[in-house]
């Protein structure tokens, strides 16, 4: 292969040979046969650009194909590969080993989700709570007649909700939320952020319906503003802010 010379450092011998190695610790657990989880350790080599997901797939390919991990897009779009990486909820495909600044990379299944096996967790609760807040435009006139045009929105109106529309349902926020860990009925930051996403949409007429849904004993009021959801969201959604906006409606500060 042709030698690539570095622009920054003329003395760098070869940019392609910067490979280092790291200890990858993977949590293994099969609820059907194991009492508790245990770690399996693998030494994997990585480049500056290698993601944690690539390292796990490397282990599957060369060491142990039975490691269970869910992924699809490999580009922070599908929301499949959420897991705890060195203790923090992150997308494995969106986390480079080099950015972790550690010789050890520990991957575990997300908190607050039941484990199917190893790193793969059940999403039923997230899908259920997401569905519960009616994540679609509620508008009697949404069926277009042949001569009608789509609803127009000004850039300002789009700005009201577009940040919240970036949610990829990865569940990292729910995994980071302290209330989620003790309150098994809590609606959770993901669903609350989506409730705000539709309530704030000028085309939507379902505000009262949705506010009613989240205004119950395990609804929005069980958020105590730890803010960890917003810290871990890989898409900049900021569920904690959405929750405060929704509270504004319920307390009469917004209309």
């Amino acid at each position, binding site marked *: 292969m042709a030698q690539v010379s570095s622009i920054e450092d003329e003395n760098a011998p070869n940019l392609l040979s910067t490979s280092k190695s790291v200890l990858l610790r993977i949590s293994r657990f099969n609820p059907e046969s194991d009492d508790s989880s245990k770690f399996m350790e693998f030494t994997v080599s990585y480049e500056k650009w290698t993601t944690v997901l690539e390292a796990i797939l490397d282990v599957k390919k060369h060491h142990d194909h039975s490691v269970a991990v869910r992924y699809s897009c490999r580009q922070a779009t599908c929301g499949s590969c959420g897991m705890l990486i060195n203790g923090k909820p992150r997308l494995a495909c969106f986390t480079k080993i080099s950015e972790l600044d550690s010789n050890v990379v520990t991957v575990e299944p997300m908190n607050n989700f039941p484990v199917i096996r190893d790193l793969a967790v059940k999403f039923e609760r997230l899908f259920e709570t997401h569905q519960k807040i009616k994540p679609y435009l509620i508008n009697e006139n949404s069926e277009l007649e042949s001569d009608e045009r789509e609803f127009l929105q000004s850039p300002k109106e789009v700005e009201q909700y577009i940040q919240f529309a970036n949610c990829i349902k990865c569940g990292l926020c729910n995994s980071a939320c302290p*209330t989620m860990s003790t309150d098994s009925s809590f609606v959770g930051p993901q669903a609350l952020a989506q409730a705000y996403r539709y309530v704030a949409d000028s085309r939507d007429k379902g505000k009262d319906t949705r506010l009613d849904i989240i*205004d119950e004993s395990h609804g929005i009021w069980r958020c105590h503003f730890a803010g960890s959801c917003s810290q871990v969201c890989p898409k900049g959604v900021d569920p904690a802010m959405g929750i405060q906006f929704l509270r504004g409606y319920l307390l009469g500060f917004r209309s």
Partner: protein
Amino acid sequence: MKESTIMKIHYGTALASVGLVAVHILMRLTTGFADSLSYENVLANYRSVPYVIMLELILILLAVHGFNGLRVILLELKQGRVYEKAVSYGVVIGMIALIGYGSRTIIMTNMGMV
């Protein structure tokens, strides 16, 4: 009751308590702190009707706030239909019992029955 109504009461009682508890503490400073808690002074406090009304208000506000806060903690600790019903009724009973017992003390002392 709607959860938002309950939480409005929760925040309202919190804010009102801050004001009244501040007055309550400032009253301790009118004389020396220890002095203000001497037997005669405490009894004298209870004879003052405006002060007694304030004590009764603090009692109600904090009983409502505290027991609702306890309800919140208990709801987040464990879930289940029967348990949650027990918690809801339990805290209302606790609230009423505390206000009742506190009011009895306040009224009896005010009327010179101790």
